[in-house]
């Protein structure tokens, strides 16, 4: 559908058209002679309002606005992985080739490389009946990921022609499908999907498999499940981005979608560079082979920032539909909320809390609800885990974005300024954080790591709680007056905090720790605690036990025991026993 109208007013990224009746809500439009991408966000009797995804400098009233007849959509197909896009899926590599280091306006490069040939294997034959979501072709998109081309949701029918296996471009027709109304549809390697509509699924499955991250405090104390949602709130400098990077590098999802939403340009170049160098411990291939980046940095147009979150999750859902486990990192959702606020302000809507629009909670809910472990239309299982960073203004967790996010996520990893000041990373505060996934995940932990893992975690948690109470006293009167058993609690809690919870992302062994080692570390720490407790109840002073250096040795065991030499933990157990029995005999 081709229809045109002309610009009436311009105010920042918001453009208005007067007396037009042809545009529909959320329709994608091209604005001005430079054909800037925009989206209709308001339609009324006399005024149509459009948000423009690019700089509006130089636009004049009277320039044309062209409708496309379809909502804001993205192209889904091979070439998404190992690539970097802006907030509306424009390929930044291509744009760099065309316009150099700075992003010029009105770029119209196709999202996916149309000239690249893919080695396609067709998996259907003539006469096959295909339902929505059925896979009709496969191709190796990167060395580790097989891309599966699926019948778009809402379409089904009989295959009337199939091309032979071979090399095809993204837009080449490989299958022709006749639906039950007799209409013939040409299926290529790609499809379009509107970003604000979730891709349909058959149903949701219980979230009972953890997303293994190799980060001790997360895997042990606050695990998130595959298909779960987690929020990482923290003031600036507390390590949100660092935590997101660690998770993106090491979590055991098949596909990573990293959305840099209104954050720093240098951080995105860091991700690009690191992921292109680091190898995935599981596949031995580069991390970039399973990663797609959406980079809409803080100085790029604000409307595209608002869209970037939806673009990211739509790409994620596409890979989920193929049966992959996807993890989506959104850094940061506060910037997205601020983009909402900014546009809402330009529309002169009535503000609710702190100037945010009243629909902020419902938008957040819509976004987080697109996570989940699901049964796909083609009967495969897949999941999307959303890990959203939140940047509370003034580091105050009571502000609207943090509070509303808390309602829709089940994991809360609160980052703490005091911890980050002491360079205790990840600065996840163990008193404020929580995970609601324990009931779903405990059976998995019990099955794969034994019942004791769950027991150990409870004990560790218990000690930390006790320490927190004791520290209140210590802050008032000092630690000297505490009885020996409480001093032991404080001493062992120090081992847990520094030796277990704190993790060094820059240390080759410590950056990723397998679950088995996490369990053994807890076991050794708790063994020392139990043994020392017995000595103290036999009136042996704590100072003597501390003097043995066992506590300090355990603090350093995360560095001293390599991830592949877990048998060394037995030596630690023996050493604890022998050293402590020496104290008794002396």
């Amino acid at each position, binding site marked *: 559908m081709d229809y045109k109208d002309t610009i009436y007013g*311009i105010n920042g990224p918001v453009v208005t058209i007067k007396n037009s009746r042809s545009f529909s809500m959320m329709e994608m439009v091209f604005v001005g002679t430079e054909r800037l991408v925009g989206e209709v966000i308001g339609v009324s009797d006399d005024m149509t309002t459009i948000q423009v995804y690019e700089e509006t400098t130089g636009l004049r009233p009277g320039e044309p606005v062209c409708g496309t007849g379809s909502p804001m959509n993205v192209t889904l197909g091979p070439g998404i992985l190992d690539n970097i896009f802006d907030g509306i899926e424009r390929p930044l590599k291509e744009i*760099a080739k065309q316009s150099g280091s*700075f992003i010029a306006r009105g770029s119209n490069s196709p999202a996916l490389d149309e000239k690249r040939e893919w080695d396609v294997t067709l998996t259907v034959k003539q006469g096959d009946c295909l339902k929505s979501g059925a896979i009709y072709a496969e191709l190796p998109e990167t060395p580790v990921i097989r891309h599966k081309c699926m019948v778009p949701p809402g379409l089904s029918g009989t295959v009337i022609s199939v091309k032979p296996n071979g090399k095809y471009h993204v837009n080449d027709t490989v299958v022709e499908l006749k639906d039950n109304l007799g209409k013939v549809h040409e299926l290529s390697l790609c499809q379009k999907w509107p970003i604000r509509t979730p891709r349909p699924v058959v149903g949701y499955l219980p979230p009972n498999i953890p997303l293994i991250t190799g980060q001790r405090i997360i895997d042990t104390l606050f695990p998130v499940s595959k298909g779960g949602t987690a929020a990482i709130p923290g003031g600036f400098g507390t390590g949100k981005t660092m935590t997101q990077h660690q998770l993106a590098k090491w979590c055991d999802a098949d596909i990573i979608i990293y959305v840099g939403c209104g954050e720093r340009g240098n951080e995105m*170049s860091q991700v690009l560079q690191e992921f292109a160098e680091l190898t995935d411990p599981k596949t031995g291939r580069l991390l970039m082979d399973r990663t797609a980046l959406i980079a809409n940095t*803080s100085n790029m147009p604000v409307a595209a920032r608002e869209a970037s979150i939806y673009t990211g999750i739509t790409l994620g859902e596409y890979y989920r539909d193929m049966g992959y486990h996807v993890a989506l990192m959104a850094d940061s959702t506060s910037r997205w909320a601020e983009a909402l606020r900014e546009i809402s*302000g330009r529309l002169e809507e009535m503000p609710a809390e702190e100037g945010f629009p009243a629909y902020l909670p419902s938008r957040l809910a819509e976004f987080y609800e697109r996570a989940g472990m699901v049964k796909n239309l083609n009967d495969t299982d897949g999941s999307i885990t959303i890990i959203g960073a939140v940047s509370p203004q003034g580091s105050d967790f009571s502000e609207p974005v943090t509070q509303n996010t808390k309602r829709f996520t089940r994991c809360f990893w609160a980052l703490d300024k005091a911890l980050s000041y002491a360079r205790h990373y990840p600065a996840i505060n163990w008193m404020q954080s929580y995970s609601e996934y324990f009931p779903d995940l405990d059976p998995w932990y019990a099955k794969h790591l034994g019942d004791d893992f769950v027991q150990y975690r409870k004990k560790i948690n218990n000690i930390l709680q006790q320490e927190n109470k004791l520290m209140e006293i210590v802050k008032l009167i000092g*630690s000297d007056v505490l009885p020996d058993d409480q001093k032991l609690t404080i001493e062992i809690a120090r081992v847990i905090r520094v030796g277990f919870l704190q993790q060094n992302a820059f240390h080759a062994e410590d950056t990723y720790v397998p679950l088995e080692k996490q369990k053994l570390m807890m076991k050794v720490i708790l063994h020392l605690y139990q043994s020392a407790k017995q000595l103290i109840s036999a009136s042996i002073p704590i100072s003597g036990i501390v003097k043995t250096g066992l506590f300090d040795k355990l603090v*350093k065991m995360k560095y001293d025991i390599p991830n592949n030499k877990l048998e060394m933990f037995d030596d630690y157990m023996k050493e604890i026993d022998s050293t402590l029995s020496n104290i008794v005999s002396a």
Partner: protein
Amino acid sequence: MILDYIGVKDINGPLIVLDNVQDAFFEEVVGIRLDDGSVRQGRIVQMEGNRAVIQVFEGTRGLSLTNTRTRLTGHPMEMPLSPELLGRIFDGSGRPIDGLGDIFPVKRANVNGTPINPFSRIYPKDYINTGISTIDTLMTLIRGQKLPIFSGSGMKHNELAVQIARQAKISDEKSGFAIVFAAMGVKNDVADYFRRSFSESGILNRVVMFLNLANDPIVERILTPRCALTVAEYLAFELNMHILVIMTDMTAYAEALREFSSSKGEIPGRKGYPGYLYSDLASLYERAGMVKGKTGSVTQLPILTMPNDDVTHPVPDLTGYITEGQIVLDRSLDGQGVYPPVAVLPSLSRLMKDGIGKGYTREDHSALSNQLFASYAKVMDVRSLASVIGEEELSPEDKKYLEFGKLFEAQFVNQGPLENRTIDQSLNLGWELLATLPRETLDRVDDQTLDQYYEPAKKRLSSHKDSQKNDSQMMWEPLSKINGALNEEDNTDEDTDGGGTHE
């Protein structure tokens, strides 16, 4: 056809409204001629049909509904660019005010710039040796970084910025180093202090200055950093120079933006600042960096004064979310006469982790800085405990921490304004301070590094202690020697590289 629009429809603060405007475009610059012959500049900030809202840079004082003639210039706000910019002084909207005449531009560029493609960025890794122990060791400045100084009125942020500019230049002289200085709403003597200091260091011909002083129009203030950054980008990415941009004071800039926003009748966000303050600040700060295929860089050192020293105020808060770390100054250290009064714990450099260590500074750098942060954080805990139960009641270990804290502030944080310490000096000093703590408390460092650096530092310390037994203060001789500039007499027989040499 050139049209003059006579009169205006409406005047509101710095804004005027024109009706029946033909063929104008958004953000177009206009010239406004008053009946008395003076000319002002303005920019179209909103268009609705043929009605244009224009922001007048010099303010609307003296305008009436009938005494103006407005002419469209046909281009957006542009800055003339040429290599001759170096050494020149401009007003807040980029017009020369040093009496040396107009710039003959090689090219013109829109002051708003265009965003750097994230794909084209080079991840910054080259560290800048500022010669200041706290910054080099604990919050290393990297070329292409944006590292603001969070300060408060009355603290020594200007001195610190000048010292960084002066000392950072030394390693860069060959590759083409220049400073772009943007003053926004600061007092005349502050701007003059910077000019004098650059002149004393002999680098004035490598400085481009933009001055929008406290009594200059606020609308111009919104343009000042944009003009400055356009020049910086030109020098860095077309002439391949290393540019340090000093912008002071960002709080005054944000207040100008607030004033302008409220006169436009926009819905205010937190503390009355417009909802787009984050995006607006980001459009400035994100213009730092390095790009592929160019050897130049733009490093930003914005200075902002936190109202009431409140770091959660929207301006420092949003700034901290955009910039790659921050240097926070502390009033109580300042009160104790410590210079630079850097509050170590809340300060941070995000790009530091990949720019230090083997091949960049020294292999023990990362471990040492982590340990200094951790130990100093412990000092704070001990101090708060001591303030409740008294120093006497502290355990012997805690007392050692108190001692360490005192020395850390007096020897490591404190240094002379003309003192330029090498990275080795700073790192060794750090180890000597840690040597006052028992080895087993250093849990951020592995044994090998401890053997290599902690033990020698401890020996250095104790050998000095033995030779100076009768005077316990003297054990700090080696440290205070490095600290030569603190002590006027010591200065003469010291060989601190750079400190005072160019005076």
